[in-house]
């Protein structure tokens, strides 16, 4: 079962990855119905007619005195964004970022977050970035038409995360690059045969350095002895990075991603509206 299911999941994932782009603004649930109003509002054919201010280029300008270009399209765009922001705020689950259990301290810089904790002689940090962390939808193309008014699946952020374990005595840092397998967030019936998270690469890196030192030996786990892999998973679990942590990280990352998405929309609106 495990082997045959894994194969089917991998092939499905590969097909999706090739054919479907990453989510864009319009793919977000509440945005879909609003997209339609944008096109109606834009009145493309009349807006492109030559006018006194734009005799040749067809940019329907709206003057506000700031000196910048403002078109009818920009106005519609800003209105669309107002509605989108309102909708996104309505469905926002967390006004503040959820806390991680296990005494982790959190530090956020834009889309990047860093969790740290100290345990007897070791400093452990986990960093992740919410950019491009929402996997493509696994919905079948052919079923889309049948979906109709059904609710869109919730968007879940599953970022790659990097665990750094620093031995405070030796000042050596072991770095483990961790991922959420693609099929974990699929919507099939029996696809959940992968671990909740997996380790992809392990390496020693200079302590406190943000750049990945390419000449440090990097252990890939694709062809790794499974016994060694299990020891590495136990090593992480002993340091508080287990399935519970991975689940909480998804919740935190999803909240942060949504928060940053709303902030981006607000910035975009200010930029367009002037």
């Amino acid at each position, binding site marked *: *079962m*495990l082997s045959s299911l894994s194969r089917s999941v991998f092939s499905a994932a590969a097909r999706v990855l090739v054919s479907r782009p990453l989510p864009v603004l319009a793919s977000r649930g509440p945005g879909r119905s609003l997209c339609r109003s944008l096109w109606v509002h834009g009145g493309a054919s009349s807006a492109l007619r030559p006018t006194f201010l734009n005799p040749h280029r067809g940019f329907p300008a709206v003057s506000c005195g700031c000196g910048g270009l403002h078109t009818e399209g920009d106005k519609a765009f800003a209105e669309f964004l107002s509605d989108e922001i309102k909708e996104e705020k309505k469905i926002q689950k967390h006004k503040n970022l959820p806390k991680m259990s296990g005494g982790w301290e959190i530090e956020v810089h834009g889309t990047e977050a860093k969790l740290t904790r100290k345990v007897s002689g070791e400093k452990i940090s986990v960093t992740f970035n919410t950019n491009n962390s929402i996997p493509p939808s696994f919905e079948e193309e052919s079923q889309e038409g049948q979906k109709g008014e059904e609710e869109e699946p919730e968007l879940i952020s599953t970022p790659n995360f990097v665990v750094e374990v620093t031995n405070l005595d030796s000042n050596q840092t072991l770095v483990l690059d961790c991922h959420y397998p693609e099929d974990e967030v699929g919507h099939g019936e029996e696809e959940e045969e992968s671990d909740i998270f997996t380790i992809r690469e392990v390496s020693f890196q200079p302590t406190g350095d943000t750049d990945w030192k390419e000449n440090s030996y990097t252990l890939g786990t694709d062809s790794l002895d499974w016994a060694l892999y299990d020891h590495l998973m136990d090593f992480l679990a002993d340091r508080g990075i287990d399935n*519970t942590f991975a689940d909480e990280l998804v919740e935190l990352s999803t909240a942060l991603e949504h928060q940053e998405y709303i902030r981006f929309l607000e910035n975009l609106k200010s930029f367009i509206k002037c």
Partner: protein
Amino acid sequence: MSLLIRNLQHVVNLRRALLRKNLEISRSCLRVGNFDVGVICINDAKIRQLNKRYREKDTATDVLSFPFHEDLHPGFLPKPLFQDEYNLGDIYLGVEFIYRQCQQTQEDFHSVLTVTAVHGLCHLLGYTHDRLEDWRQMFEKENEVLWAINKATGSALKPLTTAHFDH
């Protein structure tokens, strides 16, 4: 050929390396080291779902085995024709269920987990315990495997079906 361990639950803290070590001894004892085996650790909800779907029993349980081969005879190894058939199948361990039972009986969780996994492995080879004769055969095989583990690790594990039939 590999032993794949997957941990899909977060209710119980699992020692994967220990489980693997004991199962590798078991595979070697059963002479099935050249066959793939999947061991999937799941919670109550998931094993209940599987138990309902495949056994029509709407309850959580400790272990469910899904043999890859159909024509199994206890005491005889499957005879694969192709490379893909060097597969014994999958063992689903209801670790939440096992953990809860261990708390009630004051037994060591990882010991019981090993015993349960060995039980599941024997099922993958066609051993059953529905009739007294079948059970005797399975009990002997489980005992043999656990003896090998006990010898290698110094533990004192006993077969899961020890009290299955009065003997």
